């Protein structure tokens, strides 16, 4: 019976320890440092096309600014940004996405593109603006606007 007590305590300990985690780290991406901004824009483009949020969220910084045509507007933590974007892409299902302009810079790059989507059978096109900022060796998405 004592063994059961210890097992329960270990389970509790691990559960409670798990609760300490407060910052969301979706996955580990070791190659992130070596990528240049153009590669990142291409990767983001592919991930938006595929609706792969994890592939985009790895570039979210502590605070990411979102401004979407459905009224979403403001700064979101990486935890929130993941689900806010997931919800948006669920409702406005992407049919195609492509950047039509990319401006590279040493520290602040941005790209604009067209986001074709299907919302309850209604097809439409939105303009997208994404800006990246280099913090240390990493590029972070600072802003994503979909109008």
């Amino acid at each position, binding site marked *: 019976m004592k063994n059961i007590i210890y097992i329960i305590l270990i389970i*509790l*300990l691990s559960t409670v320890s798990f609760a300490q985690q*407060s910052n969301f780290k979706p996955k580990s991406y070791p190659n992130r440092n070596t990528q240049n901004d153009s590669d990142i824009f291409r990767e983001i483009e592919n991930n938006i096309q595929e609706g792969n949020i994890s592939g985009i969220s790895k570039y979210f910084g502590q605070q990411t600014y979102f401004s979407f045509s459905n009224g979403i507007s*403001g700064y979101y933590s990486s935890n929130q940004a993941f689900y806010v974007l997931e919800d948006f892409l669920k409702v406005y299902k992407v049919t195609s996405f492509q950047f039509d302009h990319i401006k590279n810079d040493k520290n602040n790059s941005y790209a604009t593109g067209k986001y074709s989507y299907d919302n309850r059978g209604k097809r439409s096109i939105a303009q997208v603006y994404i800006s990246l900022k280099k913090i240390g060796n990493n590029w972070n998405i600072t802003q994503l606007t979909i109008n």
Partner: protein
Amino acid sequence: MLRKFINKFKGDRKYFSIVFFILIILGASGIITERIVNETKKNWENHLTQKVNELEISVRNDFDDKQNELLSKLNIVRRDLRKTLLPENESYKELVKLINYEEFDNYSIEVFAPNGKLIAWNQSLAINPNELFPLNFPLGETYFLSDYLLTYLTIIDTAHIQSDIFYLTIAKPIEKKFSLANQYNPTLSFTNEVTLKYQTEFNIDYSPYSEKSKDGRKYSFELLNRQKNKIGVVTFVKPSLISTINNIKEESSKIQSLLVFFALIFAGLGLKSDFKKLNNGILKFSLLLLYFSLLRAILFMVGLPSKIISGPLTDPSYFSSAFAWGIVKSPLEFLTTNILIVILAIQIFRYSKKYFLFGRYLKNKIGRGILFIIFIALIFLLIRGLSAAVRSVIFDSTIRYFKEPNILPDLPSLVMNLNILLLGFAVVIVIAGFINIILKLFYIDPDKINKAKLILILFSITILEYIAFFISNDPLITPFLLAVFLFLIFLINYQIIFNKPNSIYNYLFALVIGSVVSITLLNYFNTKLERESLKTTAIEINRTDSNFLTFMLNETLRSANNQENTDQFLSNRYANFDAIAFVLWGKSSMQRESVNSGIRFYDRNQNLLGGYQVGLDPGKEIFKYIKDDTDEPTIVEISSEDNESIKYLDGIIKLKERGITKGYISAFVSFDIESIGANNTPDFIKSNLSILNRVIDVSQLKIFQFVDSRLSRLYGDVYPSRDQIKQIFQTQIDSNYNDAWLKLRFEGESYETYLFRELKDNKEIITTVSVAERAFSWDLFNFFKIFIVHSLFIVLTFLVILLSRVGKLNLTFKSKLLFAFLFISILPVVILALYNTQAIKERSREGIFNELSQRANYVEKHLTTQFQKFKTRDITTACQNAAKELGISFALYTGTDQLYNSQELYNRIGFFDTKLNPKTYYHLNYLRYKEYTASEKINNFNYDNYYRYISINDLDYILSVNDAFNKIKITFSTTEVNVVIFGIYSFAVIIIIIISTFFANQISQPIQRLTKATEAVGKGDLSIKIDHNERGELKDLLDGFNLMTSELKKNQMELAEMEREAAWKEMAKQVAHEIKNPLTPMKLALQQLIISYKDKSHDFDKLFEKVSQTVLHQIDNLNQIASEFSRFAKMPSLKIEVVDLVSSLNDTVNMFIHEKTSIIINSKLSKADIEADLSQLRRLFINLIRNSMQADAAKITIDLSEAGNNYQILFSDNGSGVNAADKEKIFNENFTTKKQGMGLGLSLAKRFLESIRGDIKLHSTSKSGTTFLITIPVYHKLSDNQK
């Protein structure tokens, strides 16, 4: 072992049958769904026709409902009109009053006199009074009336009063054409309503001239009014096969998810009774943990409850955390998880309490040491876990808990507040439970508390938690908060140990502590967020660069160019371009970003047609840059004409029709530090979604921006000194993040400052954002703001507890006392709170009135002065001068018509009416007020408008000044005052509830004990004595009772003695009498025999035989007499009946409920029938309990169980035990170790038990206690055959 364990779980058939049934439906639902899908595919054409028909009918019905609603209101107005326009009423006063009642708030009503003059109206006017005629539609028929901002469902009708015909119009907005991203502008759209309801895209053309769509993918039908006239056309996209199948599958998946949920719940209920039978608390908890983990995991996998409940509660922007794969990814998911956590926490608390009170001590020292360390670690991790969760609640949410505008927040915020409370409660009771276990590890006996030892242990726990705090890299809590946290939890343990361990009100107490702890943490992390918001502000300033502004303009211009009808408007010289520009601006990202911006329309000759702009007023420079060879937007950076340092981006695009330029649309935007907080934009227009507007008051910030070490821009009222600039540039900047934190001093006050460095276009830009440290709002106001909401949940819990115990309470003396206390104390508190709120509201209104009236004074004085100097000046010019020079927004009316408005643009757009507010008209015109403050509304934005009669140049005007455009400061807002008042009073109410419960317990306890003792006396127990420490009348009462019982007992004993003596005497007489009877013949016979022997009679042998016979016969008689007397002296005859052992034990134990000795009955049996004499049985238990008490036992445990055909009772105490020498004698008659005992108790008990085929044995005895084993045969009811 495992099989044995599994065998215990046989389950409840009733519930398992339901589970089985659900599983069958679940399986069948998959097959049915597939069938429906195939059927739909096969007969798609028929399905489509049917579906299209259904949609048409449904939308027609929805529209008819709206028509009927409007008609019913029209009838009410017509009735009011007839009632108020009777000849005896000389004015329209009553009519104006009636149509301005709250029930018409969502309608626009106008009443015209027979001469066409508007005589009564309410709020905004849908129909321009000058444009009533010619009528757009036949009288009495509903039709759509559209302007640039709204479409109304309207009816114009007449009312015949005597010979006069009055016209009345009623309109209700049905479609809002503009959108603004803020909380004041809810969407209003019949199109959206039906689109969402029927899950297909609708388009409604609100015109009788509109045509049906020719697109084959769409279906159109005409909207008809009640007279069957066409008033519009509805078009919707026909449902596609794929979307229909997806819908079917989605609905099926929802049903299946619900079925899985119910199956799990019923499976749990089915195992409940078996689960209850388990003895091992740890095992029970493990199974519960397993069940709830499984339940949560399955709920998460099937998407419940989010799949069923949509809306703000599932919106991740309100809260979302990636914790545990997303089980708390929205407020609702968080709540679901929390409910399960709370159930588990309560179980931990219950098991730990039971272990503390009745568990066995752990003897292994190493094991105890390891467990102690583990529990210390667990407690710290739980505190840190709660902190991490609360931090996430603050940082991973857009809800600003302390800045909610209303005292009761909206639903997502309310649910998040509940989440915080539940989490705090769960952690508090689990930690309290762990402390219970730690106390047990240190041999703290709940019955004999060693206070010094207890304090030492609690002190050690505190010290060790502090050690854990200092070891931790990021403890997420301050030392002070940790101390407060531990102290409050120790209070719960104190309550368990010293007061009532099993009181349900302990949970209420824990809830209050959980609330205090969680709000304190929330407040703590909110200050962190406020600090972080300086960082966000700096990022925001640098985010909005020329790239983004160019994108914004490009996108706005393209979107405006693609807008339907834009070019058609250019052909209409009466088109309202201000309104069109406003609608375009509202939909663009310029509104969402709340930057200085605007949109303008120009004709082909570059003449301005109209536009909307905030904070920026550019000229026509943009036309210099327009190129002939492109149709793409032209965007350039332009310097302001007035101030070259102010730059803005201006863009223009040609509007072409068939290749010919018909006009231009220009959009312009600028971003400056001054734009932070969108100060130039009226509150009802600006976006408040930006985090900047909500975390910290932007007006308190001081912002400096340096470009290449030179101050380029600043925000706030202070310039940085040379020392401050030096300090800024000497600050060590983090090379990775290019930022730093420092403290600057302004006017002797310390300012927390965030420094951010950015490299743009080879220029180094340094931005600093500072806020006074005192601005970080950690105060009681914040605490009460949340506590009000928590207190509602706490009071609700209290009421639920109270209601659930109503049956048990049965309005006892205690409950009456509690209700009396609560009533007496809460009632004045509520009255006081309401009174204070009302008083403060009055003061607040008075403050607003004074501020607006003062501005009206300035305007009046300015206008009067102008006319004194320039008598011929026209009133409009005078008003323009006053507005410009004073910087005050105002309007001027002559009669009921507006003459001037300094915010003319909003009039032109259609946001405001040029007609006087009807309530003001009523008060000034009919009630003869000189001044009046009206509460007005634009959508959901409430503001106050002050009106006053003024006289200029002998002409009367009405001047109005409002706080929608004039920002006024009042000491406290109504919400702030409400928070303080209701916050303090709700805290007081909670404290009152706790104190009232305590006092009600204290006062009623002696009475309750007296009641129980009286019951015991009634049942024959005269040994009862109430120990107490009472004073005054209660002391006299209890002492009197004790004296009465002791006297009764003494008298009873004396009486018994006398009775016994009398009985003995009587018996002796009887015995003597009875004995004498046979003795006489014996004596005579023997005397006869002696004489015969002496006479040597020859008949001696014969006589000897006869005498012997006689003597023997008489001896038999004597024997018989002795037997008779023996039978007579026997115990009274037993009254054997079927008795429930469980209730008999409970009844008996209840008699001792107020004794110091705690008596616990442990039994899984709900009923245990035996055959016995009830009074003898009770006497047996009373004897045993009394014996234990006399042996100084503090605790008696009675374990009742069933063993074969017998019930076994293990009667254990922790008294002084039985001496080894006495063990054999205790059941002997007349054996006793007590001074006053008769030695009959146990012998009688044994005799009684034997008489009912039972037994009693001394099971074990030592110095630490004694255990008796009692066995009594189980009563088996005989069947009729056996009978």
